Structure formats: structure tokens, C-alpha cells
């Protein structure tokens, strides 16, 4: 009985210790169009990574994207992302090809459900995972096509906003 207790205790502690949460993060996007380039940064993402299974989830508060122009932020939230209706962009999935015992930088595929603007798409995006001394760094750069997530651009502004934006994620998980 005592042994069983010790085993269960250690297993349950072990299981919970495998889940890492974010220490700091940076999410940015870049839109290149004829008239203006638009970029925005967000430091308020939250994420959990289960190291033993490679399962990962993240959540990005839309209204925390910071732009160079405050009017851009207003339009981004009000007109395009409708952030009051859809306050978060989320991802739930798994790092495929992730080997927690490997110390060197490794390429992984994040496969799962990406939800933006209330629309969920099955995606598969490439990224890297690297163990640092005090943290685990996960990075990814991928393209998001606005039409896939029903984000509409008014015809008058098609020269200002690209149809596809490049998203960069940098997640530092604390150990």
C-alpha cells in the first residue's frame, strides 16, 4: 500500500511537472502591401506545452496587438478582427516530431486547430524547438490567409492591406 502511494504520488507529480507555461512571449505579424506595410506586436500570449506528449495550446488576446499608429489598432479591432466578438486567437494541437530528450534545436510540425476571428481551420505549420539552460524556446513563422478566416478587407483598402500576413511566434516556456 505504501509503495503504491509513493508510486502514485511520484507519477502524479511527474505528470503535472511536464506541463510548461510561458515566461515571456512575442507574437508579431507583418502585412506587406502596395501603399503601406503594417506590423504589430503582442506580448500577452498565454500557452501551455505538455513536454511528454508534445501537446500544445496557445491563446493570443487580439486587443493587445500594438501598432505604430493608434488608428491602425482601432481599425484592426473594430473592423477586421471584431475583437469584442472574438477576443482571442487560439491554437490547440500537437508538436509532431518533438523529442523531449533531444537537446539540440529540432524542427517540428505544429498540427492542430487554429482559430482566428471565430473561424477554426486545421493547420500544420513548421517551427523549431530548442532547450536553453533555463527555458524552452519554440519559434514559428507562418502565413495566414485572411480569407480563410473570413477577415474581410474593404475594396477601397486592398492596396493597404495584404491578403496574406506573416505571423511570427516566439514562445519562451519556463522550466
Amino acid at each position, binding site marked *: 500500500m505504501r509503495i503504491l502511494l509513493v508510486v502514485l504520488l511520484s507519477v502524479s507529480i511527474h505528470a503535472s511537472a511536464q506541463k510548461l507555461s510561458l515566461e515571456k512571449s512575442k507574437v508579431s505579424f507583418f502585412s506587406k502591401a502596395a501603399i503601406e506595410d503594417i506590423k504589430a506586436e503582442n506580448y500577452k500570449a498565454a500557452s501551455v506545452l505538455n513536454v511528454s506528449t508534445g501537446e*500544445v495550446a496557445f491563446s493570443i488576446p487580439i486587443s493587445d496587438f500594438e501598432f505604430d499608429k*493608434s488608428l491602425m*489598432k*482601432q481599425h484592426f479591432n473594430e473592423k477586421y478582427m*471584431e475583437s*469584442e466578438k472574438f477576443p*482571442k486567437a487560439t491554437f490547440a494541437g500537437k508538436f509532431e516530431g518533438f523529442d523531449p530528450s533531444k537537446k539540440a534545436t529540432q524542427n517540428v510540425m505544429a498540427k492542430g*486547430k487554429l482559430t482566428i476571428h471565430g473561424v477554426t481551420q486545421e493547420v500544420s505549420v513548421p517551427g523549431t524547438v530548442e532547450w536553453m539552460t533555463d527555458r524552452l524556446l519554440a519559434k514559428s513563422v507562418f502565413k495566414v490567409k485572411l480569407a480563410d478566416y473570413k477577415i474581410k478587407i474593404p475594396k477601397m483598402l486592398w492596396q*493597404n492591406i495584404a491578403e496574406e500576413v506573416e505571423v511570427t511566434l516566439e514562445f519562451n516556456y519556463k522550466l
Partner: protein
Amino acid sequence: MRRICLLLAAIMFYHLAVSQDDLLKELDSQAPKTTVIENTFKGSRLVNGQTVETRGKGELEFIFSHRFGALNSGSYNLYGLDKAAVRLGLEYGITDRLGVGFGRSSSDKMMDYYVRYKLLRQQTSGMPVTITGFGYASVKLAPPGDATTLNDRTAYVTQLLIARKFTPQLSLQLMPTFVHKNAVDKTIESNDQLAIGVGGRFKVSRSVAITSEYYHRLDVKSTNPYKNSIGFGVDIETGGHVFQLLLCSSQRITERTFITESTGDFFNGDIHLGFNVTRAFQLKKPKPKLAQ
């Protein structure tokens, strides 16, 4: 002992059973529950009057306001289009919540200066309204009547703008207003006057909203010839511009004049077609907020 084992086993299975979606739920429970509601209105002006909105930090807004004459002034005046009043204004955001502005109106050659500060911000839970304090002073450079010194031609307006965004489409605003004029014709008005304004906007599409505004003056002398101001508008937003097309009972544009010196009776045909055009310039880039 058995109970402890069962409990631990349950904890263990819970951890093993945490799937990807549960990870998301876990994130949700960690997330801050309340956020600030922004963009209660598209622009800094509802119709003639102010909204709770302040400019973003480092943003300069140029406002060009234009009011034609009354629609019922006859074909000789081309239904008001011959006569126009103009105000040119600038407003700058010192911080995201504090703004200063000034303007020059053609009627009475009036200069106006103001400051506004967002005292409270509506949140998804907790604070139900956004409240902005608005303080304004104006000087009529053209001498009206017996007021010969600049001091006599100065007036002050203090407003508390209280707004709530009920849905992403519907926002309503209440505007208790105090007006002080240094010199007045005592037979028709007092130095200190009170008014209460109500207004709102309804968004009909992502870029178009319908607005309206009414100021009711309180404690008005029976000899007072002025009327309460009412106005309706359509906001159209394109990129860095907000274009507001208006129909209002007042041809005068700034607070002192349209609230307490409005002559038109809207429902008697004293309708002034007008527009406000704003253009925003970002003078200073906001510093990115660093990671927590």
C-alpha cells in the same frame, strides 16, 4: 490510506487525460477576466458635440467642420448652400487618455481651446461606463453687442461625458453640461447655465454609423430666444479619415454657441446641412509595451 490513493490516482488520471482542448480551457482560466472596452464612438465628435473618445498617444487630428445655412432659407440662398460657417480645429493626444485641442470658427471669429481626460474606462466586467471630463474656453474676437473687452467675450464650458457601449453596434452617451459666460444680456440669459445632452450611435456596417444628439437646456428664462440644439449624422470611415455628414438645428459649431446660442428650430425647417472631416496623423510612435 485508500482514500488518499484514490485521490492521487484521480489526480494522475486527470493529468494524463488533459487533452489539447483541455489545455486551451486551462489557458482560459488563467486569462484575465476583464478587458477595457474601446472604440465607443468612431470619432471625437458625435454631431456637434464631443464624445468620450480621446486621441491615441502622439496622434494629431485635424478637424474641418462646415455648416451650410438653413434649408428653409429659400431658393434665393440656394436652400442654405450660399451661406456657410466653418471651423478649423486640431486635437492632439498627449497620452492615450489626455488630449488638448483648439479651433477657430468663422461665426463671431471665435477661438476655442479645450482639454479632455478619460477619467474611467468601461470594462467587460466591473466598470459599466466610460467617463471623460471636458473643459473648454472660448473667446469671440468679433465684439457681440456691448461686450467690448476680451474678458467679457470669454465663456467656459465644463462637461462630463458618460458613455456606454451596449453592443458593438450601439453606444449611448449622456452629457451634463455647465456653461459660464463672463458677460451676458441679463434680460434673456444668466451667466451660469445648465444643460443635459443625450446622444448615441448605431453602426449599420463596419464603416458606417448613424448618430444623433440633443442638448436640453435647464432653467431657461421665458424671454430667452434660443432653442435647444438637435442634430443627426452619418459617420463614414475610410482609412485615416472619418467623414461625418450632418443635419443639425444649429449652424454654430462649438459647445458654447450650439448649446446655448442655437437659433434654429429643426422641426420648423431650420435644418443645416453640414459635415465634419477628420484626418489623423501619427506624430509619435507608441513605445511597444514590454513583456510582463
